[in-house]
């Protein structure tokens, strides 16, 4: 019997394919049956209503995209009223992504959102720590640890910490999140980037800079997922640039227990549904009986000792 389920802490997912926060919504239900995927992950929600960043919020770069959506949010009340009930019609577990400008606000939002219908909370600690120096919580181990500690005390639900690629301390941040009680790591959010329209000489994004996602980003996020899987014992959920079934498998081999698909859904809206099938076919073709046989099977001959050294460029 083919087993394509995966285990993220106490949460069993029927398959390792789920959406990335901000690239998925109720609207996708008009395209395919959302119950075929392993979990549902909502756009990051904040406590208050927010309108997000100025437009243009998106631009194309060679083979990928930048976005500076920001976190437009209807606020937690509207979210609980409209969004959670929508997803309760599905069996797939609902993962709610949250964000806040300080550790305390983060914790109180987390508490507020820990309601029936929510299976886990993904904490988007790649957002700016406004109360502090404005750098994202996940830029440093210390701020990661501090916010995760408070979050841990605020809920009994599984906590998934979403990391940022903008830091130079990936493994340290991963360990800090684990130590402070994260149940899983999502690796990772988008990478700060920029594009300028040479005709108008203006930044292509209304917000000056934005986050790189899509295929161009894959080798970077894959490296981070590998580094994290080597450094922590909690599950790592790979995210970044996945657009083919081979990409999914590459992440699993690198050590990810599940993956999130973001930008690729914009190009091929049914891609997640397709990948669930393709993954089963792949396992069968390879004579494997479960996803677990793939996770972390990278043949790296113990080379991971060199991880720190590798943080230098070639």
């Amino acid at each position, binding site marked *: 019997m083919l087993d394509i389920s995966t285990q993220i802490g106490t949460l069993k997912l029927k398959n390792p394919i789920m959406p990335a926060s901000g690239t998925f919504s109720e609207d996708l239900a008009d395209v395919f049956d959302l119950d075929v995927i392993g979990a549902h992950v909502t756009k990051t929600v904040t406590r208050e209503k927010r309108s997000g960043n100025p437009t243009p919020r998106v631009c*194309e770069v*060679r*083979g990928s995209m930048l976005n500076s959506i920001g976190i437009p949010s209807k606020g937690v009340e509207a979210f609980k009223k409209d969004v959670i009930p929508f997803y309760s019609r599905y069996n797939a577990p609902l993962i709610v992504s949250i964000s806040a400008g300080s550790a305390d606000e983060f914790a109180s939002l987390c508490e507020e959102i820990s309601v029936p219908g929510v299976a886990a909370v993904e904490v988007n600690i790649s957002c700016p720590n406004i109360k502090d120096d404005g750098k994202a919580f996940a830029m440093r181990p210390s701020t990661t640890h501090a916010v995760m500690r408070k979050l841990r005390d605020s809920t009994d639900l599984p906590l998934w910490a979403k990391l940022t690629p903008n830091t130079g301390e990936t493994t340290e941040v991963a360990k800090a999140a684990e130590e402070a009680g994260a149940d899983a790591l999502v690796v990772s959010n988008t990478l700060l980037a920029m594009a300028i329209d040479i005709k108008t000489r203006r930044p292509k994004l209304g917000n000056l800079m934005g986050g790189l996602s899509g295929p161009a980003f894959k080798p970077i996020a894959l490296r981070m997922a590998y580094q994290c899987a080597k450094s922590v014992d909690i599950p790592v959920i790979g995210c970044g640039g996945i657009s083919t079934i081979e990409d999914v498998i590459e992440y699993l081999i690198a050590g990810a227990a599940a993956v999130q698909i973001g*930008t690729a859904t914009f*190009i091929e809206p049914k891609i997640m549904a397709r990948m669930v099938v393709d993954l089963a076919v792949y396992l069968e073709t390879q004579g494997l009986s479960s996803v677990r046989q793939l996770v972390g099977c990278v043949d790296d001959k113990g080379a991971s000792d060199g991880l720190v050294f590798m943080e230098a460029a070639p």
Partner: protein
Amino acid sequence: MKSIALDTAPGTGYANPIHEVECIIRSNDTVNGEYRLLVLNAPLELLDCEPGQFFHLLCPVSGTFKPYLRRPMSIYGYYPDRGELHFLYKVTGEGTSAIATLTTGDTLNVLGPLGRGFDILPNWQNLLLVARGVGLATLAPLALKSRRLNRKLTAICSARSRKLLLSLDYFNDLGVRVIAVTDEDGTSSVESMRSIIEGLIAEDPIDAMYTCGSNRILKLLQSVAATHRIPGQIALEQQMACGIGMCQCCVRAFHRDGGIVNERVCKEGPVFHLQEAVGC
């Protein structure tokens, strides 16, 4: 017919589900110097659409053109009887240049129909449409529908030059009254158009106005429509990624309830209330 109540309740879904289909190209020819007409073979489920809706096109990657995101394109024509879907487009950048390379027999992946189209409410009998340039692509199917519903339609078509005026034959064939205005004739200025419209209203009161795109025309119609208390609708554009409401990148600001709200062009739009639209 869908109303544009513009509520954003989640998960209400479309009346028509969204399809992703690899369509075969029937033809892809230059219409005049600047525009091209793309005709696709389309299955029936794609053709259950409304004027003002759009498709999100996956442009081919070939040679130096390497578009990544899909490109939104209004439905220029949908013909269930012939199994045809038409787009009228202007080659502006990488994506449209890539589409222009396609020839008969090639395929194009389309996603749609998307968004909310124009309304023609039962009591809207005398309709006015004001369009400039490629905006006609968006408004053309409205003419077909208004004829099917037996409404009277006047179209003011504006362009830089007479050479660039599009779709005049199309409108004429449908019995639409066409008023062509151009920059080269000096007939396309705001004042000139205002007096044309005021003349039309004086002749026979207009029940609804439609337009798209141009900021100048938006301002003009908002003012005329406010004076005469005429309802109106406008189709708007914005950069898009997903095209189906997920990414929130395509928002524009609208006046509502004395404040400003953001709405997604791909989902709550691309058609909005004329008076709510904020010029830019």
